């Protein structure tokens, strides 16, 4: 069982000061799968990614990556572990002072002693995989949003990581770019034998490509299942989320005192 799971999360709690963000999360993520983490804005999805990457430490509980408890690692060991992880940031986070080629080559130059000729071949192969070999000489400010995200994807697979985390990869993309990115996530995961975690609220696009879905609401796992189970689910939260209904367990109105009281109508009626 353990060898099948790349990530095991147990009893994970995290708070900013007194504000609890995650409350007792348990998850397992199998190798070679694409897992989606969904939830409304501010539900703690990105925090979860940061905990997996060891950027922040849990208040209690643990994240185990390939058998190692992430937050217990020393700095050097943590950096070593991060070389096995890739992360795609929401808007790509390409280094603006480097060309597309140098962005993809960045980690190879920082972490390996490969000769420049081999780096060139590898970079072109990675760029070819995302369909942008021809754009290797461009600067990030010459790319469209979708292209920048594909370059960032090529950069995150530069050292063939075991895990890639995608933070809102579909935000702000046109329908074509959206399905290109979606298909790339699936194809690269299968071709490279990686594991992918996709944090998103784009339900329809992600249900097409993922193997398993976790819904997070108010810091706990509200529901989980395969895409098929999720589509059929009658659980009120999942139903509201998947079908984008305005009102439900997640209310339309921010908590407030009664409407009549706010408009001073209570006394005037009589």
């Amino acid at each position, binding site marked *: 069982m353990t060898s099948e799971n790349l990530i095991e999360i147990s009893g994970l709690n995290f708070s900013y000061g007194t504000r609890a963000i995650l409350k007792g999360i348990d998850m397992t993520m199998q190798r070679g799968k694409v897992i989606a983490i969904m939830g409304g804005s501010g539900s703690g999805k990105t925090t979860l990614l940061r905990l997996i*990457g060891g*950027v922040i430490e849990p208040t209690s509980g643990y994240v185990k990556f390939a058998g190692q408890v992430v937050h217990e690692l020393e700095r050097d060991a943590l*950096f*070593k572990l*991060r*070389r096995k*992880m*890739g*992360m795609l*940031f*929401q*808007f790509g*986070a*390409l*280094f*603006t*002072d480097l060309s597309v080629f140098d962005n993809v080559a*960045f*980690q190879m130059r*920082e*972490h390996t002693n490969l000769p420049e000729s081999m780096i060139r071949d590898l970079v072109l192969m990675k760029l070819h995989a995302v369909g942008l070999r021809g754009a290797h000489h461009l600067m990030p400010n010459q790319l469209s949003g979708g292209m920048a995200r594909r370059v960032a994807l090529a950069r995150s697979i530069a050292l063939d990581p075991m895990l890639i985390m995608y933070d809102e990869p579909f935000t702000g993309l046109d329908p074509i770019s959206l399905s290109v990115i979606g298909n790339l996530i699936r194809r690269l995961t299968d071709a490279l034998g990686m594991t992918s975690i996709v944090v998103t609220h784009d339900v329809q696009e992600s249900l097409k490509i993922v193997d398993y879905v976790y819904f997070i609401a108010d810091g706990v796992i509200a529901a989980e299942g395969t895409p098929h189970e999720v589509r059929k689910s009658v659980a009120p939260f999942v139903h509201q989320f998947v079908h984008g209904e305005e009102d439900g367990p997640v209310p339309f109105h921010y908590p407030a005192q009664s409407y009549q009281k706010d408009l001073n109508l209570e006394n005037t009626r009589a």
Partner: protein
Amino acid sequence: MPKRIVSGIQNIGHRVIESVWRLGVASRFFMLVLFKSGTSVRRFNLVIRELYFTGVLSLIIIVVSGLFVGMVLGLQGYETLQKYGSESAVGTLVALSLVRELGPVVAALLFASRAGSAITAEIGLMKATEQLSAMSMMAVDPVARVVAPRFWSGVISMPLLAAIFSVMGVFGGYLVTVVFIGVDEGSFWSQMQDSVDFRFDIMNGFIKSCYFGVAVTAIAVFEGYDAPPTAEGVSGATTRTVVTSSLAILGLDFILTAFMFRGVS
């Protein structure tokens, strides 16, 4: 009334504690940058790249300002000195003012607004667009890879820029007084040579500009790294870099001058 006084005092206390706390954070960050400067030494090409942006691209403003400051000094100096019939001492006046004070100080002020603000804005924007987080997730330390090379490039280029500023200023003074007004060339240069001392004047000016280089770039990289990751945050940090480093330059200049020229007549 006493309540207002109490809250006023509390307010002052808060501000003092906050600024002392921030100074502590800045000092710790400065130590961290020094501690992580190994990469900059091993891969000196990273520093050379930044030297181009902070040093070479600042040349034009330094050269032009130096020339004009020297020309104005020459004009003003000549106006006053000729009343006493000692216009040949104008070379001494121009050189000493530039090498001791104006060279290091004005060059540092220009450097703070040209290169310091650019460093803050660049690092701040890299933070705001998650480039620093991305680097950290790629197991590359942003302080070692981004901050330290920029810091050292500033420290190296500041004294060189100050020297170029002084040289251009002396040349400007020469142009105005000797070439245009017609002061005797021989006495212009020989009086300058007699009165400018290498150890006291030139070396002290050099040491000053080294201090200014460290102060300006340390402030610039800290403000950039510490900037809130928003457009407002970065613009505020850029402004603070220029204001704080200008004040630091002037304050440091007074302290250094007091130590250096104590007892020298």
